[in-house]
């Protein structure tokens, strides 16, 4: 199949899905109280996005996301690079990190609440905690993806340390780094939302949990559509960047 056909099939499937979402509840095939028609959901989305309380909640969530990200990325990158560059640290800590990475982070949420309460700090701490391990592992993988041969070539042409970092390490690591950025955004996003849904006074996660508990389905689905859109846009922007610099990776 050529690319155009594939694109056409994909669009047709999406169209069918959206049409079904609109028609089936509208004509009573599905229970409209459980699944409101797409049109109602979109109208509700416009409505809730106009409410100051919702705008404020989105702002709080975005702030938590940004701060957690700014903590997790440099911290994780520093630890990851240290582990990758230092053989002894690597041998000691690498297995431990794999163990911790495999544990679902949400089981630690009650502890974060005990230590940080249920405010902004707790959301940031928990989201950073649930993100930092993937950053550490990706940073390690990124450093290890640099070929010893390439470093040797650069050294044989008299490259300085700064030149080796800028002209060999960075371009070698770029594809892995962008992938890491993408994954850590997903982890971070999930971290913020879970913390908000679990216990919080504000934030978009708390709103969604609340709408669900109160059986406000149009609002709930409006929130779902909104978050899904944000996540997909983030993800695709980074994937687009990845594609730009991975032409040579084949």
């Amino acid at each position, binding site marked *: 199949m050529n690319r155009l056909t594939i694109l056409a099939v994909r669009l047709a499937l999406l169209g069918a899905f959206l049409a079904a979402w609109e028609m089936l509840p509208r004509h009573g095939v599905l229970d409209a109280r459980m699944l409101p028609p797409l049109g109602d959901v979109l109208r509700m989305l416009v409505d809730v996005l106009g409410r100051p309380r919702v705008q404020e909640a989105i702002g709080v969530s975005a702030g938590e996301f940004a701060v957690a990200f700014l903590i997790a990325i440099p911290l994780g990158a520093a630890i990851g690079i240290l582990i990758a560059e230092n053989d002894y640290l690597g041998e000691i800590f690498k297995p431990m990190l794999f163990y911790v990475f495999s544990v679902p982070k949400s089981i630690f949420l009650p502890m974060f609440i005990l230590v940080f309460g249920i405010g902004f700090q707790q959301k940031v701490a928990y989201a950073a905690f649930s993100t930092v391990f993937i950053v550490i592992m990706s940073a390690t993988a990124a450093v290890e993806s640099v070929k010893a*041969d*390439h470093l040797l070539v650069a*050294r*044989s*042409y*008299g490259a300085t340390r700064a030149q080796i970092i800028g002209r060999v390490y960075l*371009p070698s690591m770029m594809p892995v780094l962008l992938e890491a950025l993408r994954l850590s955004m997903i982890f971070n996003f999930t971290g913020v939302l879970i913390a908000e849904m679990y216990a919080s006074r504000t934030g978009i996660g708390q709103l969604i949990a609340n709408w669900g508990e109160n059986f406000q389905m149009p609002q709930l689905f409006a929130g779902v559509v909104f978050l899904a859109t944000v996540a997909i846009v983030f993800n695709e922007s980074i994937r687009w960047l990845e594609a730009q*610099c991975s032409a*040579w990776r084949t």
Partner: protein
Amino acid sequence: MQRLANLSAARTDAGPTAIEVAGLSHVYDGREGKVPALEDIAMTVGAGRFVVIVGPSGCGKTSLLMMLAGLRRPSEGAILCNGRPIPSPDPERVGVVFQEASLFPWLSAQDNVEFPLALRHAPRAERRRRATDMLDLVGLQGFGGRYPHELSGGMKQRVAIARGLVQDPPVLLMDEPFAALDEQTRMTMGHELLRIWSQTLKTVVFITHSLTEAVYLADEVLVMSARPGRIIDRIAIALPRPRTYDMMATDTFGRLRDRIWQQIRTAD
């Protein structure tokens, strides 16, 4: 061609020295304890000569080359390159070509060749001009825009040679540069290398596993023993230049190759 042949013949006379190694030994202090890699190496390479080093795997050939390039310091002994020690890499004195896949995959062929000049912050126009000249020299005119994954194995090594020569160093060190190529491409590349060598008048130290390649290319073959590597034989290859593929079928060629083979076998 006759002129080139005369020139090459003249080079075999004892002229100025490009590389001088005396009493060189090296012991690696690795995790599995001390590994004696090289023992009491002495060698002299005259300017403009083509010297080939052969020896069993792990006998320290790469280690020796790294030391000649200033990439590693020997535990003992002295190296002089054009009369001066080489404590750290100096691309204006020594160019290096590695085994394979040493090109940067994120740079075009042109940018790979320009890489050493970019490190020195050479002006853009000069970089372009020198790199283009080098790509022409190695027979890749018009391929500068290609990325390594768009080039064949032989073409990649041509780019690597162009990169090694772009700063015009008098000495070119080559560590099994054609080892990953198929036999036919390998012979073509050897022949091409001799052409480039005769045009540029470089001193070449070339490491290989292939005895045929060694005899075909060399003025002199140095045979190394298994670890710790010592030089156990020096064989002058008196075949006339320019070398031709026909020479491989001659008795002289066969005898030279057999002699190296005997040496390596007893050394193992």
